[in-house]
């Protein structure tokens, strides 16, 4: 057991570090003002791509490096260590790209993949809808084939990250309502600048707008942009969702909140409290800190499995499950130690870091799979517990709509 790189890994890490070192200023830093400027972000990703640090695990013919998941993990670690902001096209790389690779035509490969990795094009993923959250296959956005063979898409998608910047998206649509709901779906690549596509920011409770609503009003999509067969969209979507898990991959990076950062914050404030309060704060901090250490080292175990060549399984979700609760507790604690300023949104120094974090975390337990859905997945896929009986078995989509009174 050791935490050291293998010689190959060490060599790769050195190469990655050298590149980052060389381009340190160009790459920018987390916390920089311009981190929300998408042109800067696209340029950063292009720079990293040209340095061979984007799409590490993608096949060479898809514009990638043909590397290992461990090499990708090392890149992630080094970029995080150097505080380089995240890639703008993370969803494109993690979800859209793999779907195009598996189900797209050679022409689509040529047209899209390299540009995606360089962030010449930004991509988004259009699956969720107002009436279908956890139950993704209940989606209602329709695609109807026209006489010339092209398709017309109408409907509404939500929770679409980056839709306002995106050039392309993959969109899951219903092409046949008269079969069971999983059966009648079809996937397309859609031009986000096409007529009929309207993007509206969706504000979260924290005040930020990390997501969008996207409205499709009779948007024309040529049949060549179909991914997979007509009616096979559910299988195509599963590729997308599996790829998401693979792209997250563990790797010891913490979700949502750095416990060490919070410990620093608490450490700076705990001395101002009464002795009794200090004892109470230490218990809460201790519990959250132990949780976060457990999550971190469990991530290292997953990384070790990746290093051996294993693919991450559903147990990778355990980290998120453990992380969201303790992150919420920690954020509450971080706000509480602000004392008399804890009830305001902004502290006297103008900082709102902890209050913002507090408002972001309830959504973290929902985004990317609610805690309940993750528990079902782990219970069934890891522990082998039986699934719940499905009330929607053997029912067509149209029938299920009628039953729900919709």
């Amino acid at each position, binding site marked *: *057991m050791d935490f050291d790189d293998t010689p190959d890994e060490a060599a790769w890490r050195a190469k990655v570090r050298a590149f980052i070192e060389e381009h340190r200023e160009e790459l920018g830093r*987390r916390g920089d003002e311009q981190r929300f400027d998408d042109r800067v972000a696209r340029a950063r990703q292009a720079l990293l791509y040209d340095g061979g640090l984007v799409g590490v695990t993608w096949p060479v013919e898809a514009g990638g490096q043909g590397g290992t998941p461990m090499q990708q993990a090392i890149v992630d670690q080094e970029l995080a260590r150097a505080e380089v902001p995240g890639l703008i096209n993370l969803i494109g790389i993690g979800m859209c790209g793999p779907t195009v690779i598996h189900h797209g035509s050679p022409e689509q490969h040529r047209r899209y993949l390299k540009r995606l990795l360089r962030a010449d094009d930004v991509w988004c993923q259009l699956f969720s809808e107002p009436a279908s959250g956890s139950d993704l296959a209940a989606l209602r956005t329709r695609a109807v084939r026209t006489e010339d063979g092209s398709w017309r898409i109408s409907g509404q998608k939500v929770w679409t990250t980056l839709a306002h910047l995106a050039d392309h998206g993959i969109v899951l649509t219903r092409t046949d309502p008269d079969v069971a709901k999983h059966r009648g779906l079809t996937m397309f690549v859609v031009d986000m600048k096409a007529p009929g596509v309207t993007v509206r920011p969706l504000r979260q409770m924290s005040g930020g707008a990390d997501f969008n609503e996207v409205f499709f009003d009779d948007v024309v999509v040529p049949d060549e942009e179909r991914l997979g067969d007509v009616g096979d969209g559910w299988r195509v979507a599963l590729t997308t969702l599996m790829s998401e898990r693979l792209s997250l991959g563990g790797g010891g990076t913490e979700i949502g909140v750095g416990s060490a*950062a919070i410990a*620093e*914050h608490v*450490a700076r404030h705990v001395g101002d409290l009464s002795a009794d309060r200090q004892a109470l704060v230490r218990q809460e901090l201790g519990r959250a*800190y132990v949780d976060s*250490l457990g*999550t971190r080292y469990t991530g290292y*175990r997953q990384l070790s499995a990746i290093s051996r060549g294993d693919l991450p399984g559903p147990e990778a979700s355990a980290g998120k499950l453990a992380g969201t609760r303790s992150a919420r507790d920690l954020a509450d604690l971080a706000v509480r130690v602000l004392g008399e300023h804890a009830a305001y949104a902004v502290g006297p120094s103008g900082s709102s870091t902890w209050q913002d974090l507090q408002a972001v975390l309830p959504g973290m337990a929902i985004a990317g799979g609610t805690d309940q859905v993750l528990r079902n997945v782990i219970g069934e896929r890891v522990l082998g517990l039986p699934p719940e009986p499905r009330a929607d078995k053997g029912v067509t989509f149209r029938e299920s709509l009628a039953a729900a009174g919709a």
Partner: protein
Amino acid sequence: MNFDLDDEQRDLAASARDFLASSASPAVARAALDADHPAAAALAPGRDALVASGFATITVPESAGGGGGSLLDLAVVAEQAGRVLAGPSLITFARAAVLLAGDDERLARLVDGSLRVAVVDGTGPVLDAASADTFLTLRGDDLVCGPGAVDVRAPIDPTRGLGQVVLGDVEVLAPDARLRWEHAERVGRVVLAAEDLGAAGRALEIGVAYARERQAFGRAIGSYQAVKHALVDVYVQVEQLRSLVWWAAWAADQADDKLPMAAAAAKAAAATTLTTAAETLIQVHGGIGFTWEHDAHLYWRRAKVDRFLLGDDVAAYDEVARLAIAQALAGDGPSAEAGASAEAAVAAR
């Protein structure tokens, strides 16, 4: 990055499992509870068999006849011991091996079984006192050793052999031994956490197996979210505890400076995890889960006692927080390591 057991350790786990599963079981713990007098309760595998197996003294150097293994090796065995609620505890042997380091004569007697030792902390209950006749303790800053009178009290968990010890004439083994003492205590916490990992993991297994079999209202109870999610929460805790145990054992073997935090974190997580695992085991079983004949309460008893051993869970969480605060103030915490900052923590979302 290779944060995992190696093949040798996997083999070690398998052979420890063979030995322990055939020589100990919760049923023995139940019988011990029924014994007329606590001091007469039989342990399994018992001190002699455990010593004879060689597993107890894995961490004693080969020069003194021990296994010359690492603490991680011992932790791997301890997990197996915890699964079947074996007694006496490997904690006792691990601490003794650290305290007697350099004293090859006594170590040899630990290995051949003639030194029946337990470690005395202050005035509290002494782990494995019931099967010991010689005691190690700290007097001032001196490590001392000697015989003692043992009063074995009615146990919650009989496999822990807890008793009150009044020491007789002691001899000084080592002066100025406080640092060694503290190191031994931390090593003990790691082994405690490893035993609790085994117990919690086994409790989870029993609960999952029952939830897959037992039917209610026409389907297995494990299909109900209330049962499923409770078991998943235990699973997540057990896997996190496993990571902390391995990390803490690795730290004891190879990174002394990380041991205080790692040992305290493992100890704290062990208390919380085993408590939750045992409670869940009982609840998942419904009526059968709180009967004397079911094994659930034996794991629950282990949890109720272990949370108080080697300092309680509250003390361990407090220590974690103090160390985290100290690291943060010194700027050498994992945050520096990972290059994070408060701003980054938020920006990374």
